[in-house]
């Protein structure tokens, strides 16, 4: 440790790793945030969508005359009209035959889910728009619906998209290692008939919204929205509505939670653009909660059939084979990317060498899915965690010891998985030890033994082991469709020294509460040696100002790598320019220049100094003092695009490095089950996070809390369920029980730091969390059941399901599991 002295004023202003006050808080705490519904333009009309009450139906006719006759109704746009205004349908990621799917901004000819939008009304007030929407007369001819993903794959099932000719959106085989050899030679084979991961959503508290103005003067389509991946949205909607990307202008400031769900608002935004064009005025849409539940997008539901696990008698798990059926809902929004994204974590946290998954994604008469926190990996991690617990339950292993034995070990990193992904760093066994210590596992084990039969209560201890893979290589899209010209990833940042020597940072990362203004200022402050509160980070996103990077945004646990990597690069370029200009002004060598607190000085000679205002002055308003070469080259406006070191994966073998970092979260929990009611109470809960170098530990801890609470809610309360006609049963917070302060346990958070060797700052993206509470709670319920009892086979465990598990009289293979030992 160096001692600061007057002679060497190199005292660092770095706040990396410190909980500096969040910059965003003051405005948000005083109601001064700028959310999408706070945006207002002159002549704005309010939009309201007319939605299908049917799961599947033919549209016979639409009559808008009663709606138009209301005073104050500006216009109504129907699906047919919208289609006529469009150039092409939305682009599809899927290969043939699903590539033929035609989706337009509003439904045409048919509705395919409860909530599918058939028309949109624009009126003077939000109340009037809603009234008018009720007066749009739509005649439907109901059709049989299919709501089960396995049944949807059946050739006899009702077909959603006739032009595709099948409900199968994607089908493929992933085969790494040699699972058949492993199953033939393993000491034990454990077979599990059916595992089901249910549908839910993080339901951000702010619903979707947008104010869209097709400006007839400039022909620019301005879109103030809370879409969280606007670069992707413009890629999709631009060609459809026939607007070049340089005339699309997405902006956003504060976003009221998103969790992936807000990637999905692009069809509505496209419809609003057409509505605005038709009406000749801005169209403002603020989604109602019921509309959000029906149509904003839900998480992926996945069913695993005929899972077979190869296990050695010493507990080594060799690998597994399964048939996965994923339910994409009625249209493919971002899908079928989920059909490959899970392969980032194909063996979970374990050293399994043989993985075989026959993967089918189908379309059903349900709300389209959209990436939901932990997208596609949490379903698969739930499978690997169920495999561990069911193997332990059936073969009599201790679930803790079995995990530790099969985890990727600390000395294995960088660890290459059977499909070529590289786990960068970590210490899973130690994380588990810390988590178990935090819940005082020995105390609860003793309590478990004390609680005899007849007490009416059971205690279960559960573990959820997850990887939070971050910074996607979009080359993985080629594994689902080799014709897609995608690969890599990136994020851009501008760093500017402003007129009076201020530092301005411009990032386009659409944060939704992750504190990007704060952490970017920390990173830049460390490089420019100034306190973060003196650095202005422009909030939000502006398409006309930010550099185009297709995969920019806040999703897939990437900001700490991509966003902060970009900020670091831009700040380093700015620092180099400042130093060069200071050296020129002070007639010193660049390596003699020190910078601190907005001042550059010559080392050892404090008298020779120039403030940033003087440096800015040389570029902006006094540039004749510079050499022509310097004038050409220096601007104090420095841009950096961070790109991760990826290569294009191999679509043939379906292998490659699909993601740069692997944060881990190991959770441990204790539950008490009431045998009479099936109620599950959480008695203790701990989460141990390892996301490498932490820039702002308090923000990291907040992310762990949030991911944990959403997972607990999903495990015990939250589910989207459809009846056989495709009616959604939970379309408001009355039926969809979001976790409340009365349900939420105190969450203990522990941490270790295993820096990533692959990132600019040692940090790993984090925040999604891998769905660990779903795994941990299922694991705890399993642990509370006796050795002969049922296996936990559903990710959603409300009271009635748990009661059934406890009271099921089924034994042996009737439970849906079978063990063959040799």
């Amino acid at each position, binding site marked *: 440790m160096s001692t600061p002295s007057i002679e060497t004023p190199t005292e660092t202003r770095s706040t990396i790793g410190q909980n500096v006050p969040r910059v965003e*808080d003051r405005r948000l705490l005083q109601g001064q945030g700028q959310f999408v519904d706070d945006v207002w333009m002159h002549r704005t009309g309010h939009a309201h969508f007319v939605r299908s009450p049917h799961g599947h139906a033919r549209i016979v006719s639409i009559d808008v005359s009663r709606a138009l006759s209301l005073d104050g109704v500006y216009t109504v746009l129907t699906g047919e009209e919208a289609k006529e205004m469009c150039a092409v349908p939305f682009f599809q990621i899927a290969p043939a035959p699903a590539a033929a799917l035609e989706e337009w901004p509003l439904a045409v000819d048919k509705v395919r889910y409860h909530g599918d939008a058939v028309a949109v009304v624009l009126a003077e007030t939000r109340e009037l728009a809603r*009234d008018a929407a009720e007066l749009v007369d739509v005649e439907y001819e109901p059709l049989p619906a299919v709501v089960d993903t396995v049944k949807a794959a059946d050739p006899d099932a009702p077909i959603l998209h006739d032009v595709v000719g099948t409900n199968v959106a994607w089908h493929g085989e992933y085969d790494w290692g040699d699972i058949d050899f492993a199953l033939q030679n393993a000491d034990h084979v454990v077979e599990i008939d059916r595992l089901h991961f249910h549908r839910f959503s993080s339901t951000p508290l702010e619903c979707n919204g947008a104010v869209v103005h097709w400006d007839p003067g400039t022909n620019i389509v301005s879109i103030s929205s809370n879409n969280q991946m606007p670069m992707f949205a413009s890629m999709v909607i631009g060609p459809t509505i026939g607007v070049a990307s340089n005339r699309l202008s997405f902006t956003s400031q504060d976003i*009221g939670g998103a969790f992936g769900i807000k990637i999905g608002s692009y069809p509505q935004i496209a419809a609003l653009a057409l509505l605005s064009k038709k009406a000749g005025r801005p169209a403002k849409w603020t989604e109602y909660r019921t509309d959000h539940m029906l149509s904003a997008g839900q998480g992926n539901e996945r069913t695993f059939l005929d899972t077979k696990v190869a296990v050695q008698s010493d507990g080594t798990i060799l690998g597994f084979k399964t048939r996965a059926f994923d339910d994409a809902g009625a249209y493919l929004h971002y899908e079928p990317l989920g059909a490959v994204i899970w392969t980032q974590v194909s063996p979970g946290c374990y050293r399994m060498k043989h993985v075989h998954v026959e993967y089918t994604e189908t379309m059903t008469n349900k709300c389209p899915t959209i990436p939901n926190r932990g997208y596609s990996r949490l379903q698969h991690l739930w499978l690997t965690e169920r495999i561990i617990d069911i193997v332990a339950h059936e073969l009599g292993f201790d679930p803790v010891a079995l995990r530790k034995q099969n985890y990727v070990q600390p000395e294995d990193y960088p660890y290459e998985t059977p499909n070529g992904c590289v786990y960068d760093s970590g210490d899973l066994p130690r994380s588990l030890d810390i988590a178990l210590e935090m819940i005082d596992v020995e105390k609860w084990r003793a309590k478990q033994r004390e609680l005899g039969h007849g007490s009416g209560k059971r205690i279960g201890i559960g573990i959820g082991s997850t990887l939070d893979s971050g910074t996607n290589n979009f080359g993985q899209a080629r594994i689902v469709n080799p014709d897609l010209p995608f690969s890599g990833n990136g994020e851009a940042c501008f760093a500017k020294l402003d007129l009076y020597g201020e530092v301005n940072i411009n990032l386009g990362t659409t944060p939704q509460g992750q504190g990007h203004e704060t952490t970017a200022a920390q990173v830049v402050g460390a490089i420019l040696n100034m306190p973060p509160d003196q650095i202005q980070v422009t909030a939000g996103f502006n398409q006309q100002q930010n550099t185009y990077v297709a995969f920019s945004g806040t999703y897939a646990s990437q900001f700490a790598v991509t966003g902060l990597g970009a900020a670091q690069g831009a700040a380093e370029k700015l620092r180099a320019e400042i130093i060069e200009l200071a050296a020129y002004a002070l007639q010193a060598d660049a390596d003699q220049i020190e910078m601190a607190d907005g001042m550059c000085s010559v080392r050892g000679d404090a008298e020779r100094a120039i403030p940033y205002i003087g440096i800015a002055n040389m570029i902006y308003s006094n540039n004749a003092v510079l050499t022509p070469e310097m004038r050409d080259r220096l601007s104090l406006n420095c841009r950096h695009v961070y790109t991760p070191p990826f290569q294009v994966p191999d679509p043939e073998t379906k292998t490659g490095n699909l993601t740069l970092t692997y944060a881990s979260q190991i959770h441990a929990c204790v539950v008490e089950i009431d045998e009479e009611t099936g109620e599950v109470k959480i008695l203790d809960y701990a989460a141990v996070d390892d996301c490498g170098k932490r820039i702002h530990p308090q923000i990291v801890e907040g992310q762990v809390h949030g991911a944990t609470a959403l997972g607990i809610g999903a495990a015990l309360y939250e589910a989207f369920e459809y009846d056989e006609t495709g009616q959604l049963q939970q379309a408001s917070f009355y039926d969809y029980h979001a976790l409340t302060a009365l349900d939420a346990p105190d969450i203990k958070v522990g941490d270790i730091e295993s820096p990533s060797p692959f990132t600019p700052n040692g940090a790993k993206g984090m925040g999604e969390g891998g769905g660990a509470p779903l795994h941990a709670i299922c694991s705890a319920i399993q642990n509370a059941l006796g050795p002969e009892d049922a296996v936990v086979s559903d990710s959603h465990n409300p009271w009635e399901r748990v009661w059934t598990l406890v009271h099921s009289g089924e034994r042996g293979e009737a439970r849906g599991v079978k063990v063959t030992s040799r």
Partner: protein
Amino acid sequence: MVDAGTVQAVEFTLNGEKTKATVESRQLLVHFIRDTLGMKGTHVGCDTGSCGACSVIVDGKLVKSCMMLAPQADGAEIETVEGLAQGGELTPVQQAFHEQHGLQCGYCTPGIVMAATFLLRRNPNPTEEDIRRSVRGNICRCTGYVNVLRSIEAAAQAGRAGAEEAA
């Protein structure tokens, strides 16, 4: 034909200021506050009185402003989140949320801050159970409530310390 209803004049006090307006009889108080008065701090998170993002204080009582019609505010004293900090100085409740990371996206925050303010006015010494119950009608999807509860506890402690100092 849809009847948009009648309009009526209302007079009330908003964050200490006397205000007059004409409202549609059927307009919800929250839409009146946001759209007519232009006070954007009060948020809407559901249509059903479930989430509490629109919580305000009306005549000293905590109210979900989507569960009240605008004309019912006639003669009332309304406090919204904009009325809390004076001269840019955060209240102890706001300060505690800032220090304890009691907010992330900030969308539910105004409602939760109003609920916490209401609790501590009535009960400066809340138990943990009191604190949990005070925000049971507020949904937060970011924080898991852990730091929300810590923030309210910290605000209560700060309030007690402040009271001792004054005494």
